[in-house]
């Protein structure tokens, strides 16, 4: 039962990482567009996408955090205590990012410059901080309720940062290209090139990160030749196919493939340290709540999931799908 809850946890984390990760990437591209002199155009397209979905995407964080509370209370204590500096920093960035978004989207024009900066930078720092924190449980540096200081300067932690940033930039560009293809044709090419560039970066960064991780953690190294890595390889293949689709300007297909690829990679990756949840301190079984709670959690989550998926699809379709003519910003 705890394995089922663990799978739900990672489905939640993966959906958060993909959807909210893409939203963090939006911050990067909005900032980049300012430098490229395309500020207004790109920002409009980016926020056209971001506006309807950011709240729902961000909720996946609440979803997986609450799963941690309900199903893995012991892991909650360990992680909340050990990772407090990183989580705090990320929270601060979240708040700044929301404030900047409120100003950009609803506030007066004159704060646009500073809000764009604040939005872009807080998005990036938050993403980097989360990536940094996310590797701690597999890095072997958490002992008791504390993370050893060596973690902060370890190769695993430091290579996780650029990888996270490249991945969120990649995700954002892919989804924005698909969105722009439906609604903002003038900026499609810009996002297409951005996506291809970011995708190219992700590849070597993944290799470097994997080497660093295997070098640091014996247990992970031994598992690299195990069938457990199949989903991750599959994920890589999907991302590759997605890139090909992007090259051929099949934007929606590209977005679905790339998202599917990262999803497989993340959920698959979570099972590499199996049966550990926090390596080597806590196994999934040790971290789990009593059976009655797990059962309650699985019933609630299992029953709600189909409804949630249906409602999400309705939203993404309505807000992002093919628009009516009036929605299109025509190429001039």
């Amino acid at each position, binding site marked *: 039962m705890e394995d089922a809850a663990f799978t739900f946890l990672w489905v939640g984390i993966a959906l958060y990482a993909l959807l909210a990760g893409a939203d963090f990437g939006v911050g990067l591209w909005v900032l980049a567009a300012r430098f490229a002199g395309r500020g207004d155009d790109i920002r409009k397209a980016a926020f056209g996408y971001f506006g309807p979905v950011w709240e729902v995407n961000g909720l996946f964080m609440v979803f997986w955090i*609450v799963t941690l509370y309900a199903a893995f209370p012991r892991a909650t*204590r360990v992680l909340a205590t050990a990772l407090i500096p990183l989580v705090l920093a990320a929270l601060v960035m979240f708040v700044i990012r929301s404030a900047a978004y*409120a100003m950009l989207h609803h506030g007066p024009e004159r704060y646009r410059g500073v809000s764009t900066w604040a939005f872009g930078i807080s998005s990036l720092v938050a993403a980097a901080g989360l990536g940094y924190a996310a590797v701690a449980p597999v890095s072997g540096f958490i002992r008791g309720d504390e993370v050893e200081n060596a973690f902060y300067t370890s190769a695993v932690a430091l290579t996780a940062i650029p990888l996270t940033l490249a991945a969120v930039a990649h995700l954002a560009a892919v989804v924005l290209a698909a969105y722009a293809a439906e609604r903002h044709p003038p900026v499609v090419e810009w996002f297409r090139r951005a996506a291809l560039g970011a995708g190219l970066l992700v590849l070597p960064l993944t290799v470097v990160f994997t080497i660093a991780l295997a070098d640091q953690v014996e247990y992970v190294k031994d598992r690299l030749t195990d069938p457990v890595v199949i989903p991750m390889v599959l994920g890589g293949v999907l991302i590759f196919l997605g890139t090909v689709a992007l090259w051929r300007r099949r934007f929606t297909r590209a977005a679905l493939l790339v998202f599917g690829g990262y999803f497989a990679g993340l959920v698959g990756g979570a099972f590499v340290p199996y049966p550990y949840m926090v390596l080597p301190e806590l196994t999934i079984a040790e971290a789990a709540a009593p059976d009655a709670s797990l059962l309650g959690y699985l019933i609630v989550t299992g029953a709600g999931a189909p409804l949630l998926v249906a*409602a999400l699809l309705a939203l993404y379709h309505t807000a992002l799908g093919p628009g009516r003519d009036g929605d299109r910003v025509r190429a001039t």
Partner: protein
Amino acid sequence: MDDLLAGRAQMGISLAFHIIFASLGVGLPALMAMAHFVALKKKDEVWLRLTERIARTFTVLVVIGVISGIVISVELALLWPDFMERAGPVIGVPISLETYAFFFEAIFLALYLFGRDRLSPWAHWACLIPVCLGGMLSAFIIVSVNAWMNTPVGFDYVDGEFRNPDLVEAVFNPSMPGEVLHMIAAAYVATGFACAAVYGTAMLRGRRGRYERAGLGLGMTLVAFWILPLGVGGDLAGRLLHENQPAKLAAMENLRETEKGAGLTVGGLVIDGENRFGITIPYGLSLLVGRDPDTVVKGLNEFPESERPPVAPVRYGFTVMTAIGTLIAIGFLAYWFGRWRRPRLLESRWLLRTLVACGPLSFVAIEAGWIVTEMGRQPYIVYGYRRVSESLTTSSLVDVMLFVFTGLYVLLAVVCVVALRSELKLTPERASPKVA
């Protein structure tokens, strides 16, 4: 500052901030649904404009409300890891159900705000129903979790852990009915008065058109639906305290000795631990909590010093809440009496001023009520089982956290005001949602 105090202060500040947006998050969808309903039925421009204003206000408040909620949900574990570890198996599942309520609220709100062009008018309106239900459901669940902290049931307590959880019993704990009914009603009443206050202000400034009157009437209609449940809920909450949390009740009334036929002291100050300058209604408290003048009410003397909540803040919180409760009841009655019999009363500056004051004051009452609830539970985090002092994180960052987050809340408050003002001034073409 002592870490425990810093942790408690941070929790209090965060929740005090969140509850404003949460209450509006429960209430505003109902206002929008009502206004939009009238607009569609009567095909009336004025009501459409009203709907659109509320929708625009709401889109800004949601940004701030959501981030404040996310901060709290993470803070719970950062500040009180021991509490979350022990209580997680009991309260985690209800909270995960709450996540679904959030999802549906957020999804249908987005559909409502961005789907106008793609939905038929009534389907578009119907998106508000899940938004309303989602807000109500999330308030129900989180308050029932809080009620569980006040009257924990549904587990076996073994070696400091809550084992064998019975989740249904935990959610439907003894304090739940009073707290939930009272809080949900408070959210609607406060939102109704906030709306009335906005349009009352406009009327005081001389804009007395159909639009302003409609806005005032809309707010007061929402109040009309919920003010009775608010009173019933408060009364119920008080009686449940008598049964389940006598220490809190004793602190609210500063009842020093157990008494049969206890009086109700209204107003006044707590000086050197004594009630001074208040008016005491004989047998009042016994009548209220037991429906019988001979009811025995436990005094603070029944509890060892180390188990008593701090009396002054709890007592003052209760005084402020009930005083405001009385004032808003008067404002409410006067307005509807005017609508019914004395149209001239509706033009009176005094009535308008009272209604305008009721807007912010009902939020003050909500804050005061939570001070009663939360400080009245001290020194326990889970009443009778776990103390707040045992639950605090061992991290040394607690006081840093307090300062940083207090600063961030100030930033959020400023941004909220600036963004709201700008959003409401925008021309329709630049404005984000166009519902009408």
